[in-house]
């Protein structure tokens, strides 16, 4: 009888130990940071100004192939760069010193990982060394801002001067929209209002004083950033020797395009450039060109 009892006790003890072992496993392995065993690796530092959503143990990839993982992410107090330690498999020990470490996102909503693009240096990065060339994670807001063309309105550091332009149609252009030349923001739209006499839209552009040599026969056009982006005013420089001055009016303007026109233009342009770049059997491009 006591023999039987002690076997119960042993079984119960084993059960309790197993239960607590499972609890410890759940609490340590799946909820806090724990080191997953990895093959022999060496660590390399990389400094990023913004790591985005990068997490510890995120993969490190070269040419899309996983070669290691992020060991730790630390921020030195007083510094504005994150110190990311990469543990890279010993087999891949020939990474050039000037390789670029970039934080990429897998897919649009996927996880972030560190991608290493090889440089051309003969010197290889040593264990404990630092990859000095990095590209930080692009915050989605910044990307969207760029996409919609509204992200980079300059603060009017050196003051602005005002130029007027008349459009027959401004589309959805609104005050505060950027004014761009060669794609760079040089000012913003101060006001958009209908002219009661000429029955068109009068747009007042506030342009940074630094850009005071814009020819006075330049044209202004209302463009859309991307297919669904917001609208902005693009200035296309002319050839006149005289520059625009405060209060001048731009004569040459191009109004906002209707969506139908825009899509038509987009389709034709897009396919023709496709043909030029790739030429991979996309022969069914529309013949019409602008």
């Amino acid at each position, binding site marked *: 009888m006591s023999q039987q009892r002690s076997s119960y006790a042993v079984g119960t003890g084993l059960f309790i130990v197993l*239960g607590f072992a*499972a609890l410890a496993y759940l609490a340590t*392995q799946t909820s806090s940071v724990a080191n997953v065993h990895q093959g022999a690796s060496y660590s390399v530092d990389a400094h990023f100004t913004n790591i985005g959503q990068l997490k510890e143990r995120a993969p490190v990839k070269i040419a899309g192939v996983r070669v290691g993982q992020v060991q730790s992410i630390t921020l030195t107090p007083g510094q504005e760069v994150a110190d990311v330690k990469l543990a890279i498999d010993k087999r891949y020990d020939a990474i050039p010193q000037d390789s670029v470490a970039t934080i990429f996102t897998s*897919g649009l909503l996927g996880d972030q990982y560190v991608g290493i693009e090889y440089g051309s240096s003969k010197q290889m990065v040593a264990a404990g060394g630092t990859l000095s060339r990095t590209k930080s994670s692009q915050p989605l807001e910044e990307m969207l801002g760029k996409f919609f063309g509204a992200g980079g309105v300059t603060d009017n550091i050196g003051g602005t001067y005002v130029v007027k332009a008349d459009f027959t149609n401004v589309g959805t252009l609104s005050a505060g929209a950027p004014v761009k030349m060669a794609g760079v923001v040089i000012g913003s739209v101060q006001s958009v209002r209908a002219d009661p006499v000429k029955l068109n839209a009068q747009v007042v552009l506030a342009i940074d004083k630094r850009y005071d040599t814009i020819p006075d026969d330049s044209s202004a056009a209302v463009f859309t950033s991307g297919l669904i982006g917001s609208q902005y005013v693009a200035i296309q420089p002319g050839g006149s020797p005289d520059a625009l001055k405060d209060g001048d009016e731009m004569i040459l303007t191009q109004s906002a395009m209707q969506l139908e026109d825009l899509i038509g233009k987009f389709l034709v342009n897009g396919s023709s450039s496709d043909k030029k770049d790739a030429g991979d059997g996309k022969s069914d491009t529309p013949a019409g060109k602008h």
Partner: protein
Amino acid sequence: MNARAPQHNNVVIQSLAQIGNCGLFLLTLLVAIPRSFRYVRETVRQLWFVGAMSLTIIMVCGLFIGMVLMLQLYNVLSIFGSTSASGMVVALAVYRELGPVVTALLFAGRAGTSITAEIGLMRATDQIDAMEMMAVDPIAYVATPRFLAGLIAMPLLCCVFCAMAIFGGHLVGVTWLGIDNGTFWSNMTAVVVVHTDIVNGVLFKSLVFGAVVSLIAVFQGFTTPPTSEGVAYATTRTVVASSIAILALDFVLTAFLM
């Protein structure tokens, strides 16, 4: 000890009386806990029976739950190109809901029924009455050790279940379907919080479920009519009442703990 409900015809009144009797029985059990310390060996034996003997079914079921969950999630999440999140979803689903609930349902089927049948047969063969004649308190000797054993065993079983489910998910996700190992774990560790998921989810829920299932099992055993038909009926009732109680309580607990 005769806690049998008086006969009523109305179903509502009958079930109300059942619940009331069950509550009173719980009080009797709790009061008897100090007295049952004399029979600590009996508690250990019950723990072995309801806990250690249930390990196999719990481990196998946990493994398969984790595996099938990962398989389903992988298929759905691959539409959105975010299969790397599936490990994290498996962990959260198992810790917060599936672990405690499925373990409790299995526990009710595996251990609850045998507790009810055993005590019911003790009643039917007058062993309970014989104990009272011998001045052995049947509540302290029969009921409380089983209740305590269920209370202790359930959280431990649930931990084992969850660990096996994670293992199953890892097996299918990482080993077979090729999700990145580091991403699997880092996503999981990034979202699982010890307090809300493991303490509140796994431990607290399974403790409550353990108490409820063993209370129902012991109560049904003690109040069974002393016939073979009555024992069969009581065993069925244990499973039905436990399942309903588990699922209803799960909703209430989740609402409170969220």
